[in-house]
């Protein structure tokens, strides 16, 4: 009996049979096992490896709709209760944390010492650091602060056979051996289960301001010109995020393309940069400036858009989808405009935003399943024309069969497969969750 086998390894309370019907987002498991320690993870994986059981990994569940072609694996391993900051070295600006800790929990703890993790993905109250790193999630502030690959300096990873491997270290600069950290960031848990993360921190900004520039309808050229001149200036915006009119309406009450430009620095420096924006404001652009708590509040609202794994509607007519689009930095404008047009022709509702300085756009769709699928197909075609890509970061399980989540395999797919094979030869971890069915 399987259950008794695993029961010999872990206490009974940590194991339960999944009695649920099929989950809308899939990525489920026949058994749900709760890990409370790295040792638990290791034991479960060793057991699964030995018995060739497939394992899906979950913690906050916000990324449940991100990839995956198997509705139920043998085991759904939850890390949601393996949480807490292991070590916060204030003078070193580093922190070691367990994967099930939510970003909000981390931020609150660090704020006591005037520091923060410079990652601003959506749903910080729900998303855990392990999930954010495994999915390489990010937000508009990556423009200045970078993304997970720039911040993670060390990991502990439980490999498929239960071995615990350390990668990187606890120091901010380290080139000893291969930079193995990078392999696990954005690998969707297909190479191992991250059991501990050491990450670089930043001091909290002394002052922050947000300039919202509402561009009049029609022509995108002024947006582009203004963005180019800001990027070519010596200002140091933390964000240069363009919001589609639909999203802008929701967040600012104004239905027009809106640039959200953040500055975080000493007060003098923030004010000086806002002055630059005012002085270089194109004609006809309406400007709103928010400071401190107001600005923070705005960004908090911003981070509560899109699907979070729990806010899907069961009605197939209002299916939620989320897309991550990568493009050349300045093509973001084009991506959003194209998405807006395609949404209209495909009869779906669309909200989107993207960073003109970092090249990542997010588009959220609501509509009929077949319309959504057609929209994604069309947008992907357009993005690829300009060498970009479209990845579906949230789709109902059913739709994932119809829509290729990751797009075509890259030409060097054999290398990816080779790496997978080395780390997880039996393909037990998050099988078929990643590019090309890895």
């Amino acid at each position, binding site marked *: 009996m399987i259950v008794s086998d695993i029961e010999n390894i872990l206490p009974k309370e940590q194991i339960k049979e999944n009695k649920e019907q099929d989950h809308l987002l899939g990525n489920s498991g026949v058994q749900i096992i709760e890990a409370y320690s790295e040792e638990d993870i290791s034991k479960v994986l060793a057991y699964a490896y030995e018995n060739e059981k497939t394992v899906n990994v979950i913690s906050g569940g916000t990324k449940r709709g991100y990839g995956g072609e198997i509705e139920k694996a043998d085991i759904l391993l939850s890390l949601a209760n393996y949480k807490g900051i292991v070590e916060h070295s204030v003078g070193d600006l580093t922190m070691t944390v367990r994967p099930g800790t939510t970003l909000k929990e981390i931020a609150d703890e660090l704020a006591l010492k005037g520091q923060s993790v410079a990652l601003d993905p959506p749903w910080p109250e729900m998303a855990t650091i392990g999930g954010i790193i495994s999915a*390489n999630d990010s937000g508009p502030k990556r423009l200045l602060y970078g993304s997970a*690959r720039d911040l993670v300096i060390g990991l502990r990873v439980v490999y498929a056979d239960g071995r615990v491997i350390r990668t990187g*270290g606890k120091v901010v600069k380290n*080139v000893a*051996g291969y930079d193995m950290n990078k392999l696990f960031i954005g690998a969707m848990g297909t190479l191992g289960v991250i059991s501990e993360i050491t990450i670089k921190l930043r*001091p909290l900004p002394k002052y922050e301001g947000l300039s919202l520039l509402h561009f009049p309808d029609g022509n995108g050229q002024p947006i582009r010109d203004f963005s180019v001149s800001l*990027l070519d200036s010596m200002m*140091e915006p933390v964000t240069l995020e363009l919001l589609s009119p639909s999203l802008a309406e929701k967040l600012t009450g104004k239905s027009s393309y809106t640039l959200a430009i953040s500055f975080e620095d000493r007060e003098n420096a923030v004010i*000086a940069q806002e002055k630059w924006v005012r002085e270089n404001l194109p004609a006809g652009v309406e400007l709103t400036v928010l400071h401190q708590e107001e600005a923070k509040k705005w960004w908090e609202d911003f981070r509560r858009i899109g699907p979070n794994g729990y806010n899907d509607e069961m009605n197939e007519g209002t299916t939620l989808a989320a897309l991550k689009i990568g493009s050349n930095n300045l093509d973001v404008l084009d991506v959003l405009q194209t998405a807006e047009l395609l949404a209209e022709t495909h009869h779906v509702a669309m909200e989107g935003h993207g960073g003109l300085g970092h090249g990542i756009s997010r588009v959220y769709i609501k509509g009929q399943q077949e319309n959504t699928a057609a929209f994604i197909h069309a947008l992907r075609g357009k993005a690829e024309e300009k060498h970009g890509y479209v990845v579906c970061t949230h789709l109902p399980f059913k739709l994932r069969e119809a829509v290729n989540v990751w797009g075509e395999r890259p030409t060097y797919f054999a290398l990816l497969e080779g790496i997978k*094979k080395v780390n997880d030869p039996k393909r037990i971890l998050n099988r078929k969750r990643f590019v090309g069915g890895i």
Partner: protein
Amino acid sequence: MRKLMDIVGESEVLYKREDLIAYECDGYTMYKGMPRAVVFVQSTQQVSEVVKCLNKEEVPYIARGAGTGLSGGATPLGGEVIISMVKMKRMLHLDLENRKAVVEPGFINLKLTQSISDKGYYYAPDPSSQYACTIGGNVAENSGGAHCLKYGVTTNHILGLEIVLPSGEIVEIGKEGIPDQPGYDLLGLLTGSEGTLGIVTKVTVKVLKNPEGKKTVLAYFDEIDDASQAVSDIIAAGIIPAALEMMDDVAIEGVESAAYPVGHPRDIAAFLLIEVDGIVAGIDDQIEEILTVCKQNNVREVKVAKNEAERALWWANRKMGFGAMGAISPDYLVQDGVIPRTRLPEVLAKIKEIGKKYNLRIANIFHAGDGNLHPLILYDASVPGESERAAKAGSECLKVCADAGGSITGEHGVGIEKAAEMRFIFTDEEIAAQTNIREVFNPKDLLNPGKLFPQPGRCVEVKRAGQNEMQPVP
């Protein structure tokens, strides 16, 4: 040899002993090994063909840039063919609006900044060897530099790579430099792989806009502990300087005897070189706070650079620091350990003890803000036994760093030098996890073999290989 000449042309292959001997080592001179030949390539296609040819003949090979590496990454163990990338040195594309440039691997680091500086842009990673080192070499070593405290190291600035795999296959990763492309982060894996996974033939880098303002502070301390404490206090004050460098008394003796003397007092224990950059309106506050921190930590004298010329001199004095040791010692061994910066005082004290134990002078020039130490162990190779003592002292310094929760290398790489010391920080299992990845790319281990990872008995082998006479040219 003939086959190689057919690919690249007769004049592009060196094989005479006199022409090869200068390729015995790179910037790390403790081990030497003769290459079998040196091949100059000028295109990706040539690299691919050369690699295919060598692969077929099962001849090991190494890609080499300027040869300024400090861990022996481009040094043959004996009998490898060196593929020299220095003639692939064009800038292929520059797109300032999207903040990226595409260069060939032989492009010189500093030239990149020079070629875009008129438009107000620069390339951030600035290893001290930037006058000569190549971007391809920087990618291989994941080079750092004085300004990576704020701006990160090479890996944070690489957007795309074209590489030739050991099979000869040409692969493009991070097409167009577009971020987060689906798939495992091979860009991140390849950067810093010390030329053991593939040969880089094109690099897409991120370029940055110059900061609006910049101010540089020089602070002289009578006690090294005070200087160390000041480092932590500056960071704790919420300031992230663009650079935070330290140099101790022995190092000061060296730089003041060399090409760019500043006139530092000779009787101080250490100085800090601190640079803050960013929006002008915010800099003065930060400088004030830095001055206050220094004063609280018993600084003897602290001053702000009056003009660009003064700032440039301070930096030249710092950047030429390693080479300057030639002025006070015939040889040096530079180590590259990293520690959590809060542990600077105890680790520096231990390094001093190591110097005493081996009766060797140790100079410290390093990136204090990152906790990236560079103990320079001064020795004279012509004194019997001194090289060996220096090597032992170096290894002990690394042990101290590893024991303090740090790493054995922050920016110079493992190469030949620190392969054995990898065991200070990784278990055999963890090392195997890495060599398994190598096998995916480089299954026959013909590409830069024997580097980066310890092998049973490797130390002895390396030494022997280093002293071998060259192999006969076929």
